[in-house]
Structures are given as structure tokens and as C-alpha cells.
């Protein structure tokens, strides 16, 4: 009798540990979504973070380091769009009062798009977090300097794009902080 009880208990134990086929599909998907969600909660701009990451097809399967790289890529995309917009505005022959700060902004953004952000992304890939942080911070500083240079005017034609660059930088830096904390 005792042996039978033991056997039944063991059988029960065995059944309990068998994975359910349906559950093995559910868990991975929910965990990955949670990672993006969990990560973005730790950044200063949750919605911006979510929309930037989810728009990248690779984000679903990425770990935190991968998410950091994707976010740095978003910063680069935003900075490139900003530079394009600045050059477009310059091409429209604006009055001298607007032209000067726009030209100054272009000078700030060109090395950011050409060197600083690509190098930061590469550094993230190699695990060189310090280098990546320096580069991303610098990109944020240049966006701020560009905006500040319009202080004489009542409005700036690039405030929205400058702000987006800075916000994305802040999100990227927050994600890298998560990485730095875990090592």
C-alpha cells in the first residue's frame, strides 16, 4: 500500500512538472513584452520609449543591451532628420536673423550624425558603455546648444526636433544606466 501511494505521489509529481504545450508558447511572448515595458518604465519618457522600441522589428527578441542599441539608433535617426530639416530650411533662403543660428545648428549636428552617434552605437555593440554614454550625452548637449542659439528670436523653427533628440538621448542614457547597474 505504501509503495502504491509513493508511486502515485511520484506520478503526480511527474505530471505536475510536465510542461503544458500551450503555456510554452505564451510565456516567452509575455516575458519579452514585459522587458520592453519594464525597461521603459525606468526611463524619463515612457511613451516615447515604448513607441521608439516597438517600431523596431528586432526589439521583441532583444535583451537590454539590444534595446539600448535600438534606442541609440533612434537618437541617430532623429538627429539625422533634424539635420535634414535644418538644411532644408537653409535651402529656403531664410532672412539673416534666422539663417545664422540655423547655420550654427548645422555645424553642431553634422559631426553628431557623421561621427558621434555612429561611434556610440558601435561602442554599445562592443560593451564600451562609458564611450557610448559620452557620445550620447554630447549629442544631447549639441541639440541643447542649437536651441539656445535661437534665444534672440521669438520662435525657433527647430524646437520640436531638438527636443525630440534630447528626450531620446535621455531615454537611451537611462537604458544604459540599467546595463551599468547590472555589472
Amino acid at each position: 500500500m505504501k509503495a502504491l501511494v509513493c508511486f502515485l505521489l511520484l506520478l503526480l509529481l511527474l505530471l505536475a512538472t510536465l510542461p503544458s504545450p500551450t503555456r510554452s508558447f505564451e510565456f516567452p511572448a509575455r516575458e519579452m513584452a514585459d522587458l520592453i515595458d519594464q525597461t521603459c518604465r525606468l526611463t524619463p519618457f515612457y511613451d516615447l520609449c515604448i513607441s521608439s522600441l516597438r517600431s523596431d522589428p528586432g526589439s521583441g527578441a532583444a535583451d537590454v543591451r539590444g534595446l539600448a542599441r535600438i534606442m541609440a539608433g533612434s537618437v541617430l535617426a532623429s538627429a539625422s532628420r533634424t539635420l535634414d530639416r535644418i538644411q532644408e530650411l537653409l535651402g529656403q533662403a531664410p532672412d539673416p536673423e534666422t539663417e545664422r543660428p540655423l547655420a550654427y545648428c548645422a555645424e553642431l549636428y553634422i559631426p553628431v550624425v557623421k561621427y558621434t552617434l555612429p561611434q556610440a552605437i558601435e561602442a554599445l555593440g562592443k560593451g564600451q558603455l562609458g564611450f557610448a554614454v559620452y557620445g550620447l550625452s554630447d549629442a544631447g548637449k549639441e541639440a541643447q546648444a542649437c536651441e539656445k542659439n535661437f534665444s534672440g528670436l521669438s520662435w525657433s523653427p527647430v524646437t520640436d526636433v531638438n527636443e525630440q533628440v534630447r528626450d531620446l538621448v535621455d531615454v537611451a542614457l537611462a537604458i544604459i544606466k540599467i546595463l551599468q547597474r547590472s555589472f
Partner: protein
Amino acid sequence: MQNSPSHTNAPYTLLPEDPSPARPPASSRRPVKVFAATAASVVFLTSLVMLIVNQSPETPTESDHPPRSDPSVRDRLSYNWTNAMFAWQRTAFHFQPEKNWMNDPDGPLYYMGWYHLFYQYNPDSAVWGNITWGHAVSKDLIHWLYLPLAMVPDRWFDAGGVWTGSATLLPDGRIVILYTGDTDESIQVQNLAYPANLSDPLLIEWVKYPDNPVIVPPAGINPEEFRDPTTAWMGPDGTWRILVGSKVDGSGIALIYQTSNFTAFEAQPGLLHAVNGTGMWECVDFYPVSTNSSNGLETSVVGPGVKHVLKASLDDLKKDYYAIGTYDPVSDTWTPDDPEADVGMGLQVDYGRYYASKTFFDQNTGRRILWGWINETDTDYDDLAKGWASVQTIPRVVTFDNKTGSNILEWPVEEVESLRLNSTEFDDILVEAGSAVLLDIGMATQLDISVEFEIEGSDALEALEEPEAIIECATAQNRTTLGPFGLLVLADKSLSELTPIYFHIAKSTNGSLTTLFCADETRSSKALEVFKKVYGGPVAVLDDEKFTMRLLVDHSIIESFAQGGRTVITSRIYPTEAIYGAAKLFLFNNATGVNVTASLEIWQMNSAFIRPFPLEEM
């Protein structure tokens, strides 16, 4: 102290019985920026402070050579420095290593988003020796990050030291560095080095060409007087040229070498230029300037609207001289515009404590940028005690002065303005003859000062009958009708220590007015062993110009620019009392015959937080 008619315009006078100032002067505008707390209060001292007080004894007359000749005497005299005094001397926003000795700037360049600075560096001590190439990078020429040493003296061809050199960026994107190696037999040779990995934006690793040296001293040249190869420029035949400085029969010379591949060099039969009696030419620099625009020019540019600057560091005098002239690319010769002011005879790059300067073309922003090494003027003994020696200037943009047509202008790169915090403005402060005015700005050790002076009544200038020929800068206590007037920097309230930076105008025998721009270090510190003299030189002040100065004050270094950078003086100052909160800033006017009015804008400057590059990996 009495209110005479000329004082009725003065906002108020501080009377001896009245310790608190009256209402703030009306003429002083409210500060532009938010933080200037005590902006409007200005204290007038009408006593003749210059004449009355002379606290420190006259320093013995010195040659222009730094005081290295009698170390035992100097050691005995060494001031009783405290750690706090030494710590104060370190600069907040000028480039210097964390510790030990630095000298000449080397191979400056811009590459893949980073400015690079290399520098002569002794990793083992605060005096010269065991010279390596230190390395630092920056995105903006101000915020520097230290990297590992680029080169150390580990080959026979540089065993005695990896000495000064220059970088050339080739059109195909490669970088070559040529530098002087002091061989294991103390022969000066020129060596080639290049980055190990051009895709590393930080250019951390360097490779020395295995078949170094690429140039050895030629016949007729002393093998210990052959050094400091320049950046290369391309000739009309598509090959490259560099210069190496040397000396023959007391004449400083620039030897030309030609190459197509940087490994095989051919000595040119002629010289680019030579000047009798100037002695050994170190750190030769040769570069084009545009005469009709403020843009910098890449080193190979020639053509109309272009002049060439030839510069040499004179070993005998430890001063940097330059001249502007015309370069003939066909004959590879250079002729000065004014032979009377040839290299070593006329203009100095900087009239202060300054040496081994070197320019590079910044292709990122299209500027010609100038670096200069600033040695200490305290003793080796002090340097070893405090653990470091030397700083670099804030990089300066070099342009041709097309108002005078005969000199360059040097101006701190505008990126230094990113360090500006709050500012205080003063408008039309009257500084009467023989008086000083304390400027209430809070801390006075990290400042960016712009000041404009006007002499009251231009008739005063014409009324000057007696010629008072002043050929060179004398101490600020030397009073004449029209000067000196300027600023007292790093001065304590009682003026027991002070550094006057000033203009001194005189009428020469032929009736014309000349202006000198001077820095008087003779009373800058009570420390006896510090080498203190008066520095400076002439500055052209054109008819429509006011007298303008810009000063960068950063603890033990002051960079002073007159008339937009026509004449520049760098000073090293080691006060014992005028440090930290005790350091003050004054206007002063020690003229006997005129009042001046001054308008200033003064910014507090942030630190540049120069630190190691965050290279750590995950």
C-alpha cells in the same frame, strides 16, 4: 577723498568714518544673467595705492632664462607653501595632465569627430625627462579626456626621448606623424609613426615605422641641433615638403625635406629661410593665412589672397617669434614682408611665458588653431613638491589682421564660452588718475573678462608735449601722463599681492603715440623664489578703436588679449595670499594726467572637468 569738481560724476566716495557704502552707482547696469548677487556695489579707493605700498622686495635683475642655474639658493628661499596654496594653483579649464611634467604640444589634429592633442610628457616626475607622447581627446577643444600614452621611448631611434613632432592628414584619409627621436647615442633623427587602426576614432594605438629613422642629420649640421619636423604641405609637383629647424653659424634655419611616401625623404639644396644671429630654431611652424577672409586655410593652400606665416621658437631666448611673408612654391623659399621684422627680430606670438607653439588646420570648422606650451615660473623644487608642471593655453584661432596688414590675430576658440556661467556688467566706470576701483563680482579666480577703456578727452593725447618714449614695458608703478591703466588681477584687498595687466601709452620723439600692452608680475607673489618680471609688447590701436582687453583668468594662469588679439601675454602667477576667496579684481589708473572710463563684462567660468576617458568595458 575730498569731493573735487571732477568727482561730481562719481557715484559716491567711501569716507573713512563710513563703513557702509551709499546707494549703488547709477551708471552700473543690472547684471544680465541671473546669479550676480552683489552686482551693483562698487567701492572706490582714491588713495594712491600704487605709490604707497611696495610690499615685496625688488627681484634681482634676471635674464629671460628661467631660474635653473642656482637650485641650492632657490631651495633655501622656497616659500613655505601649504597644500591648499599648491592645490589652488591647478587650473580649472586649461589642459594639463593629472600630474608630472609636460612640455611641447605635438601632432594636434581632428579626426572622426575628435580633436587630438599629444604632448611631451614625463610619466615619472614633475621635471623634464624620460619623454613620451601623452594623448588626450576632446569633442570641443575644451573638455579633454586623457587616453593611454601614445608613444614611449622604447626603440634605439628614440631611446633618449620621443620628442616633438607634427601630424599630416593625407587626402586618402591616412594619418602620418613625423617626430624627432633622440637616439640611444643622443643623435636627433626624424621618425615616422602612424595609427595602428584607422577605424579607431580614439587612435589609441600607434605603430612606429620599423625602418626608422626616415631622416638623419645631414652633413654640416650638428646632430644635436636638428629637430621638430613640421606638418607636410603639398608642392605643385604633387610631392610633400616638411621643415626641420636647425642652426648654422649662429643663424636659425629651416631645412626642407621632400617626399612622396613619408618613408623616403630627399634633402633640398636650399633653405626655406634663415635669419642671422637668431640661434637654433626649435618647433618651426609654417602655414598659410587668408588675407581676405577670416577662414583658416589647409596647410597646402597657395595662391592670391594668401600669405604664409613662418614661426620659430628661439632656443637662446626661449621665445616664439613669427613673421608674415610670401611663399614661392616653385623655388621653395619664403620672403618676409618686412625684412626689418624678420623671424626672431620682430613680432612674438605671445609676449609672456609661452613657448613651442604649433598650429593645425581644423578641417571640421575650417579654422587655423594654435597651441602653446606654458611652463612654470616657480622652481623645479616647487614643481616636485606639488607634483606637476606646465599647462597648455586655451587653443586660439589664428587669422590675418587685415586692418593693420602686418600681424596675425589670436583669439580663444569660441568653445571656451561654453564654460561661461553667470556674468556681471559694469558700464562707464570712472577711474581717476591715481586710483583703483574694486569690482565686486564674487570669486575672482576663474573668469572671462572683456573690458573697454576710453581716455577722458582726446585733447589730453594732443596736449602731451614732452615725448615720453617708452620702448618696452616697465612696472605698473612707472607713472606717466597717459598710463598705465588696466586691471589688477589676482590681487588681495590690501594689494599686498597684485598682477597689473595694462596699457601704457607714450608719445615718442617723432610725435606719434605708441601703446604698449603689459603684464607686471613683479608684485604678483610674496614667494621669493618665483621668477617675476614684466612682460609685454607693442600693440597697434587704430584711430577708431577703444582700448580693449580680454582676459582668461584660471588660477595660476592668465591669458591676456589686447585689441582683439593683436598682442597677447600669458602669465603664470603664484600668489600666497590672493587665492581662493581672497583674490579680487580691480580696475586701476596710474596715469598722472588723465582719467579713464571702463566698461566690462565679466563671466564666472566653470571647470572643464578634464579627466580620464571612460574606457571601461562591460
